[in-house]
């Protein structure tokens, strides 16, 4: 064994592990023991390795990560189901049909009317969908949406400002972005807040006073501010009333 070979092997030597049982490593260690210069080099190398190990193992783990993983999994379990093959085929056929209808609908002049938008968003809340990010922290949710260039500068009514988040997703509506922010109501019912640009819609709510309406058994509250239109939906229509929007 020559010196460069010994160094190459000892660059990946981890004392206290099974590395020392490797004949190749044993030979390199014996070689180093007989070479004072290489011994000194090995000492420095082990110090460097120790620093790397310590640095990696001290990467701070965010507080609450464990809980947000568990919360997210429970949410997905509630919203997911495992259909049989024939059901999957029926869903695939329905999706194809829906896609065709949507493609036809796309050319209609009123495709971006607010009622259509609200109906579609409620359907999104009703079916299984995937959250892009899970967090109870509204700051983190806004930061994530900003990073993904989605609407994050939305203004929440006072009664929603105190609620913890659940997570968020970025949706598309006629190729335009929609931010979906999920909140946990005081009764632990998920609230779905859809935010999009007001300019993308016609017949949108004209004021900041929420308009309450039930859509497909879901309660919805809709309002607009200067630049954005909001739809808040809940599976329990009573929750929206009790929130006193």
């Amino acid at each position, binding site marked *: 064994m020559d010196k*460069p070979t010994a*160094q*190459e*092997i000892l*660059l*990946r030597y*981890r004392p206290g*592990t*099974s590395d020392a049982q490797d004949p190749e490593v044993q030979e390199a260690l014996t070689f180093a023991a007989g070479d004072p210069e290489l011994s000194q*080099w090995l*000492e*420095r*190398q*082990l*110090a*460097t*390795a120790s*620093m*790397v*190990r*310590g*640095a*990696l*193992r*001290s*990467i701070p*783990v*965010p507080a609450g*990560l*464990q809980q*947000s*993983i*568990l919360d*997210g*999994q429970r949410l*997905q*379990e509630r919203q997911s189901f495992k259909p049989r093959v024939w059901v999957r085929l029926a869903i695939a056929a329905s999706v194809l049909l829906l896609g065709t209808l949507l493609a036809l609908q796309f050319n209609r002049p009123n495709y971006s009317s607010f009622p259509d938008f609200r109906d579609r968003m409620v359907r999104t809340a009703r079916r299984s969908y995937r959250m*892009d*990010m*899970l*967090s109870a922290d509204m700051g*983190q949710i806004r*930061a*994530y949406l900003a*990073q993904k260039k989605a609407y994050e500068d939305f203004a929440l009514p006072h009664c929603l400002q105190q609620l913890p988040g659940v997570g968020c997703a970025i949706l598309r509506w006629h190729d335009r972005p929609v931010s979906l922010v999920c909140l946990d109501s005081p009764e632990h019912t998920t609230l779905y807040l859809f935010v999009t640009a007001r300019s993308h819609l016609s017949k949108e709510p004209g004021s900041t006073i929420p308009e309450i309406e039930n859509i497909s058994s879901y309660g919805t509250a809709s309002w607009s501010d200067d630049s954005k239109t909001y739809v808040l939906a809940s599976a329990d229509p009573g929750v929206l009333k009790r929130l006193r929007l």
Partner: protein
Amino acid sequence: MDTLDFEQLVAQYHEPLFRFAYSLAQTEVEARELTQQTFYLWAAKGHQLRDLSKVKTWLFTTLHREYLGGKRRQVRFPHFELEEVEVELPVQAPPGSYRLDGVTVREALAQIDELYRVPLALFYLEDYSYNEIAEILQVPLGTIKSRISRGMAMLQELFGADRTTAARKVANG
């Protein structure tokens, strides 16, 4: 796997997985996403794993695949696969008494090409064997060994440069 098992799994592995994810993505937001997504994939597909002693390897492999998949979706770039890398050993290495804090070491790690950083992270974070790292990264054993050696050599070079800078600062008062 029932809820209790899932909770135990999360409790046991969310920290090392997050640290591995952070060493890949270098941002907390992405590392969180990768860690969460890995556990959700386990919840959906973990039952397909027959050998439960492989759970940890499965989690690390899946996280790495998710990371690579995310990168492919974000940017298309040429992929360089270096089969064997000639190890260029540093002439000077920092003395044993010279210590760097964790943040500085992680910054140095971040400067190293991902090709070398990822096996190094698995090597020191979890004391994985070469075989296990090769299985997780789907790379030949010899390549793993050379990448770890090369990565360590690069780090020593970086630490040597840092030491010189620090010494200059002291000299300049």
